[in-house]
């Protein structure tokens, strides 16, 4: 299904306790097929690299992830065309990414980090044996059954998959109802 | 007003001033002001660095400055954005001023300036509503036949909005060369003794006569820009010039219409050139006197905000050259008027005692505080000079600001069928003045070298089938030069610009020397017409440029490799 607008996951800092279950789940789900990550911690053989980032302020905390902007600064900044749209979502092609960090700086949310990636359970290396590092950001678990893992695992229901289309529709109906009540 | 104050401005109205190329370190303050949240309005026909970061860029057509300023005043007047209290208490001649600006509605100005009326309104409102606003202007205001009018009109804009006497307000010229302020301070002006004391004032004359021990003339002298006319055209033998003592300048490169300058220099009976490097003017000199360069002598410079700062001898000069003041003193002495000083401090002490506004600015104080902004009237160490010039009062007889503006006069030479483009001179950031110093600096030479560039809109280039980087011929009725095409969106269609540092790509072959501002006598460097021609045989053109360069260097005394033998 193609949305009119892209969806994104938004955290509620009033509910989030900062447990990082979302980060770990994100990593686990994204590394099942490539890196043999199973159900338990012992199956992990590479550093945990999530695609959302728990952020703590003095008073509260929440994970920060991609908003899948409609005019995405990261996509616009990428000279390699390694950031593209798929079903309205903004996706990083980690094969194409050369790790230039432009998108990191372009993103106004801090939703992108340059992180190593694994391949067959080991950190992927480049020609000179250096670790491959690429832009990592939320892809809304696009190929993962059950949808965004972070939303699923949050013990406090602090994460929500926001569907702007549905949201607008719901608000419109509410407003219409209000107009009905207040009619003259 | 000081340079550092720019940073704290709430609004900067940057008018005909390209700090990025002429004073990068001043531009830095503008950039920082913007970072600190200042609003920037930029009036400039080009997308300069200031225009690029401006909130509003008024990209006016060259030579229409006063129409734009009048229109902004018109908006402020008509929309009731004036500071009436300030006008009532602090100014005179408001009504006459209003009479003129009434006609300059934004719609009318749009027909002259080609700036959309709404944008003029927007800028005027922004300026008038800012808590304090600072106007910075540069050569884009001064180098026109109608220049002083614009300066006064800008002053009136500040007056009607009460933008005087508070921090980061007022109107400030940002002058081109390093010591323009100093040369003026020192009375290298036909109408002023040092310290802006008028030659026609008998009291002043008496003071200087007493100090110097000779009778002095009370007749205002000849402005530099009148020299060609006084040599080539003057019929009255009493007014005709016969000798020209040029020091530290190169009019054959820097002055407008250099063909006329060359003729002038040829016609003069006696030309003295006192300089550090061979230059174009020296080719016409009867005598050449070698002097010391910056870094080889002591002294004081005045920076653009009236700050006296020391310059110091960094290295010893070649043994066979003398300082400028030593040479002049020796000639004077030889001519029967004895001048002898031990050092620059002795000269300085003599002159500050003659100038009430400088009297307190001793070497000792400048050393101690690094910089003294005049007026500094007392030798007491606690008098550290003056940061704000207009402290609540204007330097006029009645202490009030005078409103003034004028009707727009078009530039003297407009585009026509034969020469369809406008032509203006601008600055090259990496080179200074006529380039005798910076052109001899390796890195600056490597960054930009002959034959320079002509900035043109890509659409105009396309019309002429010229590509970026091509050598082109630029010409008008006064002369021509060869230079490279810089196709850039930063200039408007129909306009061209050349930096005046190039000896081969010499833009002053084209500029007009005859349209001077009636008050300041500044020539109209910023407007004439031209035609750009495509050169089909680029290789031959490059050969020409290279040979010209070689020939030029040889004339300037450079021995080419293999030439020695």
């Amino acid at each position: 299904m193609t949305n009119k607008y892209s969806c994104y996951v938004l955290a509620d800092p009033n509910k989030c306790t900062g447990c990082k279950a979302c980060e770990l789940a994100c990593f686990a789900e994204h590394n099942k097929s490539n890196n043999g990550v199973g159900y338990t911690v012992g199956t992990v053989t590479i550093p945990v690299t999530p695609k959302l980032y728990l952020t703590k302020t003095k008073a509260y905390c929440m994970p920060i992830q991609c908003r899948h902007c409609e005019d995405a600064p990261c996509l616009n900044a990428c000279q390699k065309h390694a950031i593209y749209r798929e079903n309205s979502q903004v996706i990083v092609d980690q094969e194409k990414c050369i790790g230039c960090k432009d998108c990191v700086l372009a993103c106004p949310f801090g939703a992108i980090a340059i992180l190593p990636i694994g391949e067959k359970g080991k950190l992927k290396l480049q020609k000179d044996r250096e670790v491959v590092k690429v832009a990592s950001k939320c892809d809304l678990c696009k190929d993962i059954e059950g949808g965004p893992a972070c939303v699923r695992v949050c013990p406090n229901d602090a994460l929500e998959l926001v569907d702007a289309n549905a949201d607008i529709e719901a608000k419109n109906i509410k407003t219409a109802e209000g107009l009905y009540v207040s009619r003259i | 007003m000081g340079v550092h104050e720019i940073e704290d401005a709430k609004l900067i109205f940057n008018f005909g001033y390209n700090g990025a190329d002429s004073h990068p370190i001043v531009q830095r303050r503008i950039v920082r002001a913007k970072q600190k949240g200042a609003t920037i309005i930029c009036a400039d026909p080009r997308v300069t660095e200031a225009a690029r970061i401006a909130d509003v860029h008024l990209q006016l057509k060259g030579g229409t400055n006063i129409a734009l300023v009048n229109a902004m005043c018109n908006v402020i007047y008509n929309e009731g954005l004036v500071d009436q209290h300030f006008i009532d208490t602090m100014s005179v001649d408001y009504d006459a001023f209003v009479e003129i600006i009434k006609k300059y509605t934004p719609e009318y100005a749009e027909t002259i300036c080609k700036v959309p009326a709404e944008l003029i309104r927007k800028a005027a409102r922004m300026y008038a509503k800012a808590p304090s606003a600072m106007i910075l202007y540069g050569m884009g205001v001064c180098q026109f036949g109608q220049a002083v009018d614009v300066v006064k009109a800008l002053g009136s804009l500040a007056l009607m909005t009460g933008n005087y006497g508070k921090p980061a307000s007022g109107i400030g010229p940002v002058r081109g060369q390093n010591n323009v302020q100093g040369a003026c301070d020192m009375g290298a002006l036909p109408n002023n003794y040092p310290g802006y004391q008028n030659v026609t004032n008998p009291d002043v004359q008496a003071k200087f006569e007493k100090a110097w021990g000779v009778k002095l003339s009370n007749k205002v002298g000849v402005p530099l820009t009148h020299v060609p006319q006084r040599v080539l055209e003057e019929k009255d033998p009493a007014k005709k010039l016969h000798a020209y003592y040029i020091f530290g300048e190169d009019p054959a490169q820097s002055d407008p219409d250099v063909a006329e300058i060359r003729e002038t220099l040829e016609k003069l009976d006696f030309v003295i050139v006192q300089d550090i490097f061979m230059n174009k003017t020296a080719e016409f000199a009867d005598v050449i006197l070698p002097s010391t360069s910056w870094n080889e002598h002591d002294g004081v410079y005045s920076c653009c905000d009236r700050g006296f700062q020391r310059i110091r001898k960094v290295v010893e000069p070649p043994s066979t050259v003398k300082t400028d003041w030593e040479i002049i003193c020796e000639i004077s002495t030889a001519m029967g008027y004895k001048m002898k000083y031990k050092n620059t401090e002795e000269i300085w002490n003599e002159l500050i005692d003659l100038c009430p506004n400088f009297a307190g600015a001793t070497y000792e104080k400048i050393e101690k505080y690094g910089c003294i902004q005049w007026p500094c009237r007392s030798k007491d160490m606690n008098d550290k000079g003056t940061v704000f010039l207009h402290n609540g009062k204007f330097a006029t007889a009645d202490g009030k600001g005078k409103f003034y503006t004028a009707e727009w006069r078009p530039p003297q030479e407009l585009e026509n069928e034969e020469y369809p483009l406008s032509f203006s001179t601008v600055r090259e950031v990496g080179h200074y003045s006529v380039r005798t110093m910076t052109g001899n600096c390796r890195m600056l030479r490597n960054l930009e070298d002959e034959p320079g560039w002509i900035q043109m809109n890509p659409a105009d280039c396309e019309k002429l089938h010229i590509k970026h980087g091509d050598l082109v011929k630029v010409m008008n009725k006064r002369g021509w030069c060869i230079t490279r095409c810089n196709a850039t969106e930063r200039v408007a269609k129909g306009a061209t610009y050349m930096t005046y540092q190039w000896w081969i790509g010499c833009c002053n072959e084209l500029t007009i020397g005859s349209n001077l501002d009636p008050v300041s006598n500044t020539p109209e460097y910023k407007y004439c017409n031209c035609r750009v021609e495509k050169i089909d045989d680029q290789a031959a053109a490059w050969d020409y440029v290279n040979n010209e360069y070689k020939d030029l260097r040889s004339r300037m005394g450079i021995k080419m490799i293999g030439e020695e033998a």
Partner: protein
Amino acid sequence: MATKQVQTTCAYCGAGCQIMFTVDTDKNKIVNAVPAKGRTNDGTLCLKGHYGWDFINDPQILTKRITKPMIRKGGKKSALTEVSWDEAIKYVADRLTAIKKEYGPDSIMCTGSARGPGNEANYIMQKFARACIGTNNVDHCARV
């Protein structure tokens, strides 16, 4: 290498930036320029301030440094001849005196310099024009 540091004011625009030069005193040569903390420049310099000093060693790039007084002994357009300072000074003084005598002091024009020479040299030049020649014909290229 014996060195000293000298702070001075940059001569390339009216901003009045302060530069700190390092000088090799043995060779009498500048080796380095760095920004100094000045009122207007605040420890920064532009490209001219940083890299605009090696002209002083006469690198023979654009023009040659003038090191000796020269006179065109054969009149206009003749070749320049190097002369002694005494001869040059006398020649200038004599010619100016003659012109002043023939056409009056206002037939002589002097310039100040808005560039390297400095305030004292400008003061001396205008004093020369006014007190020695007797004219107010002194001006500089403030407008260029």
